[in-house]
């Protein structure tokens, strides 16, 4: 179980959170990019063997969204949100 550092509540257990997915690049303008680039944006997510940046929602807590870097090999949270206390 992860202990996720919430900027408001401190370290809380993972079961209070809902997973929001890995952070994807900014949404491109569909009319400005090629079909291949658009399909890649829609379907491909970062899947690193190592640290991944991801979003979590403290849905059973204060309700905030936060972003962490977590190592997919060890579950170690290598970077907490900037304002986590």
């Amino acid at each position, binding site marked *: *179980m*992860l202990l996720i550092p919430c900027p408001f509540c401190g370290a809380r*257990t*993972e*079961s209070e*959170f*809902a*997973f929001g997915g*890995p952070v994807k690049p900014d949404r491109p303008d569909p009319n400005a990019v090629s*079909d*291949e680039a658009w*399909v*890649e944006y*829609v*379907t*491909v*997510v970062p*899947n690193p*063997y190592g640290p*991944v940046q*991801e979003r979590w929602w403290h849905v059973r807590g204060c309700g905030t969204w936060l972003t962490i870097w*977590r190592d*997919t*090999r*060890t*579950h170690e949270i290598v970077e907490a949100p900037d304002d986590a206390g």
Partner: protein
Amino acid sequence: MQRYSILSLAKNALSGHRGWQPAWRSHPLKDRYEVIVIGAGGHGLATAYYLAREFGITDVAVLERGWLGGGNIARNTVTIRSNYLRDESIPFYVKSVALYEGLTRELNFNMMHSKRTMIDVVQTWPKLRDLRRRQLGMDIYGSTYERITTEEVRRRIPALTGGGPDARLPIICGMVHTDAGVNRHDAVAWGYARAADARGVEIHQQTPVTALIRGANGRIAGVETSRGTVKAGKVVVAVSGHTTTLTETVGLKLPLRTMNLTAFVSEPVKPLVDVIVNCPDSGFYFSQSDKGEMVIGGAPDQGQSFRRDIKQHVFEDTVTAMLSLFPSFKKLKLMRQWGGHLDIAHDASPIMDETDVPGLFVTAGWWGGYKAIPAGGLTLAHLVAKGVPHPLMAPFTIKRFRHLDFVMETGTTTAR
């Protein structure tokens, strides 16, 4: 290949069991093969076997990082079934179940196949609607699904004492899938390995592939391993959760996420449940192994993971759900737990295709790929040998993503 039979058993028993040959040989690693298969798991070994048997391609090396059959083929819950939703999926899994049923004879290796049926315990009306819809599709393709009453569910699964009228989720009915069964996962790996070896395929264990190599013409040229460079005109990636890790070494991005799915087993007890029990609304499933252990599976972890372990709260949630329907299981002691990391595609259906790197093939996105091993190996071997997809796997190419032509599949057991 030394054939196994009652006669060979008797003969070797009389000679003190000194006459048995190894089931597969250890060859020196050559520097060039016609086809390299990365991963000696179910799909890798099956692909190598069907390449040799169906298409006569025997200059094949299967490279395995650890030991043969030690990856996800040893980390699943051995459920074989074909109750899928989509027109694309059902025929594929019907074929796979049929191949599994003939596998003992085909490979001359006892798969300990037990066609014991699966019963879905339905606790919500939306789930019933979903399963009834699946039933109509499955009827077309010769798979079986049939609704039974709650009384019949309880008669067939006497240990199911929870889920009464006062429960939060009372049992509504059951759905019976008589094609479902279980078998022995080691036998599948060993049987395919032995039969492939007998046809000239080389299996190299303790040979991790660290990178793929692309030639100057853009085609795949071979692989980099801990034992040196091995060249091949065709390379098959059958490495489950590590697919993207390998394909990124040639700059190829695939729509896959690596997830951890957990399972655990209880101590062995006397025969109690003779079917596979699936409780999709509660979020767990189990069957009783021949040894008597309850083999229990639950939901996947949140977030991507390459760790093959179990998270405490996933474990607790699964056990809580199980005890709500099977309160007597509170006395069971749990013996072992494990996770398997597998990759899931954007639409939860598998990907079997030649990639944008010519000569590089992937079989990935197997979310519950154990049941798909024979058909997956057969159809991928067809593609590798002939260059065109087998009709059964044609819907599962990477090209489908180009047109956002997804095969949205909900047949996966607990992917909610």
